[in-house]
Each structure stands twice: as C-alpha cells, then as structure tokens.
C-alpha cells in the first residue's frame, strides 16, 4: 500500500489552511441548518448527512477552480458546498422550489450547478465515475488544464462502474481524480464485511494508476495528497485514486439509529471530530486568531440563514414543469393523458 507522505511534499500556507477551514464550517453550519429544518417538519427529503467528512471535499476544493468539475453522489451536499456552490439556490432546490438550482425538479440527490463545476449528482452508487471520465475526456480534447473529480463512497468501490471507470481513465490517461470517502460503512454494512482488500487504494495498482490511503480527517495530509493528484492531472500524467478514511457521524440517512455500529466506536469518532480539532490547531499554531474564526463563522451563519429564508420563501414550480426539460423542446400536453383531464 502506498502512503501519501513524501519528503518534499507541498506544505499548506496559513491562508490555505484557513480556506480549508472556511469550507468545513460552511459545510457543517449548512448541514446543521438542514437537519434542524427537517426535524421541524419544514423540509421533506431523504437526507444523507456528511457530518464528520468535512475535511475531504474542503481540501479537494481548495485546489480546484470554478472551471474544474465535480461529479458527486447522494451524500454530496458537503462536496458542493465545499466547491462554493451558492447556498440560496441550494436551499430552494432542497425545498423543491422554482428558484432551486434545478427548479425543484431534482432535489437533494440531483443538485446541479455548472457555474461552480457541480456537473452531476447521482443517486446511484458508483455512477459518478463513468461520467467524470467523459468530462475529463472533453477537457483533454479542449486542450484545457481542467481537472474533474469523481466523489464516491467505499461501497461504490465494489460496483462494476468503479472498475470500468478506473481502467478506462488509466488507458486514456484522463485528468480525473477518484476521491473515495471511506467512512467505514456501505449503507449499514461494515467495510470489512463487503470489501476484499484492507485498503481501497490498493485497487489502483490493478488499473496502473497511483493510489493513496489518506487520513481524510487530517487537513494537512489531505492538502498534500490532493495537491499531488491535481498536479498529475494538470500535467497530463493521468488519474489518481485517493482513498480518504473518515467516519460518518449521523448514519446512512437521517433518522438512522446506527444499530450496526458499536457505541464505543461512534463515541470515539465523535470525540475526534475533525472540525473543533482543526480549529484549535489553527489558533494554537498561529494560522488564525480566535476573533478571525469567530467572525468567519458568524458570516457563514448569516449566509446560511439568508439562504434558508430565501429557499423556503420561493414558490413551488407549476405542474407545467412536467412537460419541460424532458426534451429540449417542451412536450405537447397530449403526451400526458391524465393531465388532459385537469386537476
């Protein structure tokens, strides 16, 4: 197994660390507001919280630009928020409203925002990877330096699409980074019970690409690993598989009672919450001041509150939207026999 540490690895500046932390806080504050709103009965949606996994997309997105693309999955709102997707259309979308990124037609599992590079969000395990390859192929043909990231979980490394995608990306030397967020559980099934290898990163060997197992809760390790993978992609050296080890604090779907975890392992993981730990270290090592981070958090909370108010106040889409965006051309009403009969 390859470890990501190398002697002359790039070290993050204070500004880089604070930027990663900013993205993490934005993820966590937004997640907290979504959960609170669901619990109050104001949002009806399946919610796959990524609480505990904030470091991974924050470190990845720090190295990306708006031109770089991501394809993510149903547990992916953290990936989008880290990519600086604006929160107002995000909230309108999860509330099913017309001002949502997808006019309320996709919802939390299909959020899409090409302006910030959020190209595809899929509800199908493993399906972010084949499409990310195509975006990377387009970038190659364009002669651009654009990088595409495919996010997925540990469970997805057992589906055929993972293996087909890694093989093709390697054969075609595509500028793509496969970021596996290994939180130890595929839905309710423990990693060891369903996966043939100790480290998913070792599967990269089978496809002739570098693979690294990284502590996905360690911002320094993640910064370094992503920097290397992005550099490879931009230089035309091809794909990289990053297995980022983390822990899912809130189960598979909101409301899940975690019966399949031990209380001890969950308690230990939560005691090691990467967010307060990182904050304390930023201050202790002089990367940021208490005041600076408090101000940052207050600003983010205001942004989230504004987005929430905006989203919840937006109108619901009209039933005519059922005829739009099926094809580029609006469908004629007779294609919807029940609709002919009105309400």
């Amino acid at each position: 197994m390859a470890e990501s540490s190398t002697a002359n690895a790039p070290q993050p500046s204070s500004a880089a660390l604070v930027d990663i932390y900013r993205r993490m806080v934005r993820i966590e504050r937004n997640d907290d507001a979504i959960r609170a709103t669901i619990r109050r009965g104001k949002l009806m949606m399946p919610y796959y919280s990524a609480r505990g996994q904030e470091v991974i997309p924050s470190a990845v997105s720090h190295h990306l630009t708006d031109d770089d693309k991501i394809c993510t999955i149903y547990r992916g709102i953290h990936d989008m928020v880290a990519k600086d997707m604006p929160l107002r259309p995000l909230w309108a979308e999860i509330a099913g409203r017309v001002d949502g990124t997808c006019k309320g037609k996709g919802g939390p599992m299909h959020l899409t925002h090409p302006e910030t590079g959020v190209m595809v969000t899929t509800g199908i395990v493993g399906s972010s990877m084949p499409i990310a390859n195509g975006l990377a192929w387009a970038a190659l043909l364009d002669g651009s330096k654009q990088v595409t990231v495919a996010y997925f979980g540990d469970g997805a490394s057992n589906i055929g699409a993972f293996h087909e995608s890694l093989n093709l990306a390697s054969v075609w030397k595509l500028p793509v980074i496969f970021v596996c967020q290994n939180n130890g559980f595929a839905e309710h099934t423990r990693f060891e019970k369903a996966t043939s290898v100790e480290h998913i990163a070792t599967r990269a060997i089978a496809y002739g690409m570098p693979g690294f197992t990284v502590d996905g809760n360690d911002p320094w390790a993640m910064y370094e690993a992503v920097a290397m993978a992005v550099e490879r992609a931009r230089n035309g050296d091809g794909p990289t598989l990053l297995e980022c080890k983390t822990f899912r604090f809130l189960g598979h779907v909101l409301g899940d009672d975690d019966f399949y975890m031990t209380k001890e392992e969950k308690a230990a993981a939560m005691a090691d919450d990467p967010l307060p730990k990182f904050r304390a270290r930023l201050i202790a090592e002089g990367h940021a001041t208490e005041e600076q981070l408090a101000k940052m958090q207050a600003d983010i909370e205001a942004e989230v509150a504004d987005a929430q108010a905006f989203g919840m106040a937006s109108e619901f889409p009209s039933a005519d939207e059922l005829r739009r965006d099926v094809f580029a051309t609006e469908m004629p009403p007779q294609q919807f026999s029940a609709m002919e009969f009105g309400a």
Partner: protein
Amino acid sequence: MSEMLKMNAIQAINAAMMDAMAADPKVLVLGEDIADPEGGGVTGTMRGLSTKFGEHRVRTTPISEQAIIGAAIGAALGGYKPVAEIMLMNFTTVCMDMIFNHAAKLRFMSGGQSAVPITIRTLTGAGWQTAGQHADHLEGWFAHAAGIKVVAPSNPADYKGLLMSCIQDPDPCIFIESAGTLFVPGEVAADQGPIPLGVARVANEGTDVTIVTWSSMVLRAQAALPALAEAGISAEIIDLRTVSPWDREAVFASVAKTGRAIVAHEAVRNFGPGAEIAASINEELFTTLKKPVIRLGAPTCPVPFSKPLEDAFLVSPAQVVAAAKSLMA
C-alpha cells in the same frame, strides 16, 4: 437533382458519420473495435473514420459498456456530441443505469441545465442465428423512458438522414441498426442530408388497411404487398422511422382513411411498443375503426437459435397477409 448512389445501410451509416464528423469538430465516436486498427466496427460501419479524423476523436474502448456511455455523457456535458456504439442491443442491459438513470434524465433532473446530446448506435435483430442474447429488439424499453428518443430506420437513405439528425439532436437518441435491413441496397442521394426525427414515411400508399411498422419489419410488410394485391387488398405501409416520439398525426391520418390498422414489429408483442400505438389509435379513432386494431409481434420467448425456430419467431409476410384478410372479412 442530386446524383443517386446505390448503397446498403452499412455504407449509409458510414457516409452519415463521415459527413457529420467533417461538418462538426465536436462530433466524437467511441465504442468497442470502432477505430481502424480494430476493423472500424463489427460490421465496418465506422471504417475509415479514425484514419481520417484521428484516434483522439474516434476511440476504441475497452469492453466496458458503463464506461462507454458514461464517457459519452460526460463528454456531452463538456460540450461534445459523442456517438457511442454499443455493439449489440442486448449489451445495453449492462449499461442501463447510464442510459436510463443518467442520459435520459439529467436534463430534467437538472431543471434544463444539463443537455446530453449523445447518440447510441446499436445493432440487433433476428435472422443471423445469433440466438437469445444477441438479437433482441428492445425499442419498447427505451421508448418507455422519458427523455430519450428511439430511432429505427428501414432503408439506406433513412439510415443516413436519421443518423445525421440524431447526432445533431439536443437530446439522447438510441439508433437501432437491425440485421434484416443492413445489407439491402437502396438509393441514397449523394447530398442526402438530415431527415427530421419523429416524422413517419409512407412506404406504400393504399386505401384498405394501414400497416404501422418500422425497422426490419417494414421490409417484411413490403414483401407481403404482392400477396395482398392478389387478394384485392390495398395496404398502406407507414414506416414510423422514429419509435419515440412517434408520428401520431401520420398514423391517425392513414387509419382515418382506411379504418383498419395493423401494428407490426420485430419486438416481442407482449407489452411491446405496438400496444401503445394500438391503444392510441383506439383512443383517437374508435368510431372510425371498422375492426379492432391487430398487433403483430414476436412470441413471448427469447430469440431462438435453430433456423426453423428463428423463422417462426419473426413475423412473416404471410402473417401480415392473414391479419389484413381478417380485417377485411
């Protein structure tokens, strides 16, 4: 009047690809064995393309159907117009997630932000004794999916014109190349351009019975014409060309004229696309119909291997004649 060229469907597909790739640098091709070092496709439809346009635009892939369609979708999201070949239609079953959950739905699920202008070319059809996993006509599966167009030509000119339209269409298209039609020569204008999707063609004019059909079944319906004429039945053959969205106006206009309709296809009859068309004719023209609409399709069984069984599986011209006679009785 442009010069008329004699060619078969394989040559027509090749001509469409040559024209489309020369006209638009965004057109790409990917699939198993499609570049020239691998033979230019299993039936040679892609021959010459990689030599002319380069292997960066015409890429042979691993045998990885999910990766093929995924790469086509992603390249489309990146502004390209990929033509993906799934060698045989039965192999779409291993990439249905990419086709059905992604290609067909991304536009809607993204509220119109994600266009997926891909064309999936795929070969199928009974007649070559390829048996149960290499010959199914699955157009009904895709016609049932919202967001994907299903195109099934019957003759070389349509193969060229419809493929050109699929490539330039802003939505995903499945383009079905049926075994029974591929080697039948026909006339194609040297400057044959795109033929609009969703527009049927009257393959034979008639007044007594309308036969709604497409793809290989058009040829078998045409083969029934002499016997129909002998029986004094004037049959109108409507070649739908596009199964979804299908040309309702053309079908209704013909059935309004004849008052009798047969919907015939190579696909299995049970829950087949003929049921949708027959039901629509009933809804629209119930009082005009002189007899209930007849559906002709393959029996509910896998495509068989043995030649007599394969022959019996396919709808024959004689069965078309018998159906028409029963409508006239």
